[in-house]
């Protein structure tokens, strides 16, 4: 029973990581950029959500606000920061991304205060359902469901729509795709919009789960997201989802059984290093 509960907790954590990691791995697959500032977009979504919810009294309005703001800002980051750097070595974009993330975090603190913002009214957190002795609140359920739905929808999008095929073609061979009349720049914008929308939704859900939206809330996912997409094979979308779930479950059991030896971050990275020592390119084949 206890272990089942740990497993469920771990899968929910994994779902949370997956919503972050999907966007990161999409960006990596397309542009070879470690997009640290994705975590800033995550926090931005949470802020858009909490400000909307507290101003309007409606959590439902917070959802489009979080997703919309994040989806708008993601492509802007591409246009004004990454696009001019694409021909540079990869660490240039990495450091720029870190700089942007630091500035965003501190911007949130200056604008909205260092203490963070709680939701005035958070009925989804306190409404719980009990399933076979395991009680889950609505936010946790939403986290799991939205990850399933998003990952599924994304799979369908890639496999069955024209834009999806264009996207896949651009990832595997940009020049070839271009010669077939696909505009790679449009694919990139789309890519950033979709990935950022997911990060914004994840930010809102995490904010609801903590009942706190704080300037530094992106810090943990900024580096753990990178660990996950590396574990899953850089740029590999299903790999990132599986790696997220593995890490979530490992952390869930680890924080109970290994807490005397290592903390949560160290447990996650111990797994990552162990895997990379055996499979230097991650669990699954990287894109391209």
């Amino acid at each position: 029973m206890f272990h089942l509960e740990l497993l469920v907790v771990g899968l929910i954590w994994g779902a949370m990581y997956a919503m972050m990691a999907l966007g990161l791995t999409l960006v990596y697959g397309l542009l070879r950029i470690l997009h640290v500032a994705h975590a800033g977009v995550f926090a931005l979504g949470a802020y858009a959500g909490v400000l909307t919810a507290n101003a309007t009294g409606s959590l439902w309005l917070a959802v489009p606000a979080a997703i919309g703001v994040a989806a708008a800002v993601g492509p802007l980051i591409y246009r004004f920061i990454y696009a001019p750097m694409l021909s540079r070595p990869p660490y240039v974009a990495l450091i720029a991304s870190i700089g942007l993330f630091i500035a965003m975090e501190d911007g949130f603190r200056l604008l909205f205060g260092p203490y963070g913002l709680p939701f005035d009214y958070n009925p989804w957190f306190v409404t719980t359902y009990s399933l076979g002795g395991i009680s889950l609140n609505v936010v946790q359920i939403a986290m799991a469901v939205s990850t399933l739905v998003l990952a599924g929808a994304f799979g369908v999008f890639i496999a069955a729509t024209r834009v999806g095929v264009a996207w896949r073609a651009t990832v595997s061979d940009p020049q070839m795709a271009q010669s077939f009349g696909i505009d790679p720049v449009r694919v990139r914008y789309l890519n950033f919009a979709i990935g950022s929308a997911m990060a914004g939704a994840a930010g809102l859900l995490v904010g609801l789960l903590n009942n706190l939206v704080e300037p530094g809330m992106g810090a943990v996912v900024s580096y753990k997201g990178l660990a996950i997409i590396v574990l899953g094979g850089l740029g590999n979308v299903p790999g990132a989802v599986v790696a997220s779930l593995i890490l979530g479950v490992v952390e869930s059991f680890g924080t109970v059984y290994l807490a005397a030896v290592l903390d949560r971050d160290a447990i996650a990275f111990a797994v990552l290093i162990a895997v990379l020592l055996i499979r230097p390119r991650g669990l699954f084949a990287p894109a391209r």
Partner: protein
Amino acid sequence: MRYSHHTPSLVKGLFLASAVALGGAASAADALRIGFHAPLTGFAAGDGKSSSLGAELAAEQINAAGGCDGRMVELVIYDDQAKADQAIPAANKLLGEGVKVAISGSYSGATRAAAGVFQKAGIPFISAYAIHPDITRTGDHVFRTSFMGEVQGRAGAKFVGEMLGHQRIVMITLNNDFGQSLATGFKQKAADFGIEIVSEYSYSIKDRQFGSIVAGVKRDAPDAIYASGYFFTAGPLVSQLRAGGVEAPIIGQEGYDTQHFIDIAKEAAEGVMITTSLDRDSEDPEMRAFIDAFEAKAGFPADMVAAATHTAVRVMCDAVARAGGDDPQAVRDALAATKDFATATGRISFNALGEIMKDVEIQVVKDGAYRHFASIHDPELLAPPSE
């Protein structure tokens, strides 16, 4: 760079004017400049903000009442990001600006590093709320006006075991010096008060998701939970414990001691009890004045960090007044001789090491606010180390 404390309100202006008129000698030219470092940016910026607000309030109040020994108090505030490699240049910069007395409104690493600088320079230095045991061991110029973590942990054990009569306890410990020292103190005395520690979980300061710990606590079914943390970890922790169906009483410490904790945990915060040094229902005029004035200044209710820096500024000022000036050696001696000085966090006296000795307050969350629950007066149990 430097914050001015002359609030531009008319009332304040009149106050200052009359203070100057009455005090005669008081003028900005020979202001008493107190060096102050705090984490204004970085991960601890929330505490840095509270700690500088608390210190500023103390300075304003002292100035409004005629200054410190007739001199206006001026704080010289620098950011240290709660990091040692920022605190040492900041401390040296304060020295360079000619401050003769200094206060830390920061965390342990930064405070200990700055303490070394001030000790070497022979400048009296107060740590307002950093809890590392080695800070006061830096030397005879270093004092601390808050509880050591271990002392508070021991008080927690007495409260849980003896006063509440709970026996099977689960500990949830924050992985940093604060959490670790609380846990040490609690475990030291647990057996004496009939406490059996069923299990101990730990989490890092970055964690906000405690699902696995909640599952563990449910399995353990303890009589009570002793959980260390700050408002931003304790808020989510307490809400998640309650949402997970854990109903055992939760006992926290001064890290919880701010309205922000209650704002985050909301209904789940009801009934949470904490050991602290700030009594919201105190009849003591010092405490009352602080609690009311802080909320008026900050726009949110007082917290422990603000009370701690407020206390430190007042203790320093009292020592300067008794020393008859800011000659560092005289102020140090006056600080060491501080006896039963009334502050927002209780009556302050120092032992040979520069540690304080005072009662522990127990507060409980009731109807969305901290209220008085009990006090622990036990000089033997609460004695800090003296060397």
